[in-house]
């Protein structure tokens, strides 16, 4: 049992990390960034290619994060304002374009060969009962806690966070009050992109470095955000971890193993049904 819980927590922490990035952006701009995984795939594959050509691993990872943050900010700068007044569904659908373009670029440049991205932290670790925990897995979990705490402080304590929360309620009114709306939005897009880059590297390390796989990270992350009802940060973090553990437990039962990947989908549907009215209210707040 412990073996599967450890495996589940490792993958769940990445769902949580991604979900935090999505949530911060959503709370500031009302945009569910469905391009999160696709852009992460582009960044991770670029990092892999650079590393294969002799660029140091950390510099390659830096490029990945820069690509994700840069594309994210650029999208927010160029298409954020014209889409700001549109329905949240339209804004979310628009970001699907990012996924399509990113996957297209990945498909053009990288074939179906096996690729692995190895972090130095993969080689060390510790035993927890029968399970071996790598440092990468441990770091992923710690990182989620740190990032969630930082996001919580950002949103609750800082002036920028106050602006972001005000934006969530009424963008036009916040702008009229003299708040630096565009700066707040740019920071939110940057945080989302930055976490997307870090998540993509860790996800590529712990699972499969392929465009399709990394693009699919958006699904469990979205499910975790829905569990947090699009507003609750720590519930979102817990949701991601629970999804990872549930997925691992389901996969471990041979008769149910084929349905492991369906866990985030099922969770998203159940949460939508259960909290339907509240989710609808949360989304209307951004309309």
């Amino acid at each position, binding site marked *: 049992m412990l073996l*599967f819980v450890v495996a589940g927590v490792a993958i769940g922490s990445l769902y949580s990390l991604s979900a935090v990035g999505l949530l911060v952006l959503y709370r500031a701009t009302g945009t569910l960034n469905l391009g999160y995984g696709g852009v992460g795939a582009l960044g991770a594959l*670029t990092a892999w*290619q650079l590393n294969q050509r002799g660029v140091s691993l950390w510099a390659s990872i830096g*490029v990945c994060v820069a*690509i994700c943050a840069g594309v994210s900010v*650029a999208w927010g700068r160029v298409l954020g304002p014209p889409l700001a007044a549109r329905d949240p569904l339209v804004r979310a659908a628009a970001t699907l374009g990012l996924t399509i373009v990113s996957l297209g670029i990945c*498909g053009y440049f990288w074939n179906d060969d096996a690729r*692995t991205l190895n972090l130095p932290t993969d080689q060390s670790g510790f035993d927890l009962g029968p399970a071996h925990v790598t440092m990468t897995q441990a770091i992923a979990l710690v990182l989620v806690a740190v990032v969630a705490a930082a996001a919580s402080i950002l949103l609750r304590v800082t002036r920028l966070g106050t602006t972001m929360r005000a934006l969530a309620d009424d963008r036009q009114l916040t702008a009229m009050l003299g708040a630096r709306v565009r700066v707040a939005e740019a920071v939110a897009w940057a945080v989302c992109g930055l976490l997307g880059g870090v998540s993509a590297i860790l996800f590529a390390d712990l699972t499969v470095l392929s465009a399709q796989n990394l693009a699919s990270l958006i699904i469990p992350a979205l499910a975790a955000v829905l569990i947090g009802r699009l507003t609750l940060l720590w519930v979102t973090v817990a949701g991601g971890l629970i999804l990872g553990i549930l997925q691992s437990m389901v*996969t471990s039962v041979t008769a149910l193993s084929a349905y492991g990947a369906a866990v985030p989908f099922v969770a998203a549907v159940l949460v939508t049904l259960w909290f339907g009215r509240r989710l609808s209210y949360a989304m209307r707040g951004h309309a």
Partner: protein
Amino acid sequence: MKLRTSATRRALRLVTALAAVTVAAAACSTAASVNSDLGSSLKKVHITCGLSNGQKATGAPIKIGAIATESGGLDFSSAPDSASAYFACVNANGGIHGRPIVYQVQDDGLNPQKASALATGFADNSSVVAMTGGASFVACSVNQPIYAKADLYDILAVGVPKACFYSKNMSPVNGGPQLSLISDAQELVNEFHIKTIAASVYAIPGLGDWLAQGLRAWAKQAGVQVKWINQTTPPVTDASTIIAEVKATHPDAYIPTFAAPDVAAVLKVAAQQNLGSSVHFGCLTPCYDTTFPSQIGSYWRGKFNSNSEFALVNSTGPDNLNWRAILDKYGKPSYPRDSFSQGGYLAAKILVTTLLKLNANNITRATVSAAITQIKDFKSDMFCTPWYFSGPNGHNNANHQLHNVKLDASGAYVQAAGCFETPDPALADILAAEKTDPALVR
């Protein structure tokens, strides 16, 4: 307004700079290393394809189609890419008695409905005379009735699900995942005397259940206990869980029957848990290519077996070298030099050989279909035995003697066993048919 314009410009500049980094990184392809396994052998190759006369074909085009899974979580594009390179070579060397081949490859996206729509499109277009070089995870079962109705035949480069090997209108040149799995498992028995085995299969109808059934039938015959066979949807996102199960149950051998990127992820987690020293890991043909060993790392040197459904990719047989040389001249450096690419080359070559025997002015779907069903005794050093299209009662699996390879201490693939008959109980009818009609494999 001015502020907004300058912000937009800055953002666009940022995107341009990042795009330049991505393109520059991606452009650093593996061109320099794709042929390092063959040394100087490739430089001496005199390419042969079609009429090999060096004259560009300019006549009326002959349309050939292919359906492959290139997206949706799996990518088998190396097969049609290779076929495409072969056709480009043929078109530059006289074509089919002066007529060039127009090759149309469509991606089914791992979607049976899309595969069906694509097949209908090809079937309804009577100018498409045959299908060749395809490699789909989902197309065979839905396409067979469409092809049968339209009298259209398909020489598949890579057959994946069961239906590809049990459909009258299609015949794969590869051995298929079931034979690849059983061949690899038998090799682990021969080499390590394993008594228990576990495997993971994709949860794709007609594939995962077929492989599980085949492994159990073989295991019963071989006296090996199957500990478990689990199913997972592609791409594999829970390699840690799968390896946790291997660690918990500890079979003598474990074979993930996935595509290469997914197997690499599984092996990486297994290496972190140091499972390679106590469990024998095997793989099907997708793991056998020139780049896989460098991606899974030094841990697996001397600890990993794989199957190959064709001759080794670095073998120096004339046809194998011809395949590699054609990829170099008419393909792209990014095209994988893997077994499925070999399949694409062979499928294209078989069709071209067949078309060249026909009257160039009478190449229609009817004449081509009739010729394809009569293909027998096609020899290549990439096959262990001659290939033929039509097996008994639509059971088309001519390539059933396979190779096995293993990683040596230097991290290179070396042959573990070459051309041995796959002990699959399901091959009984094919073996009987070959005995009855030796002309198939003369």
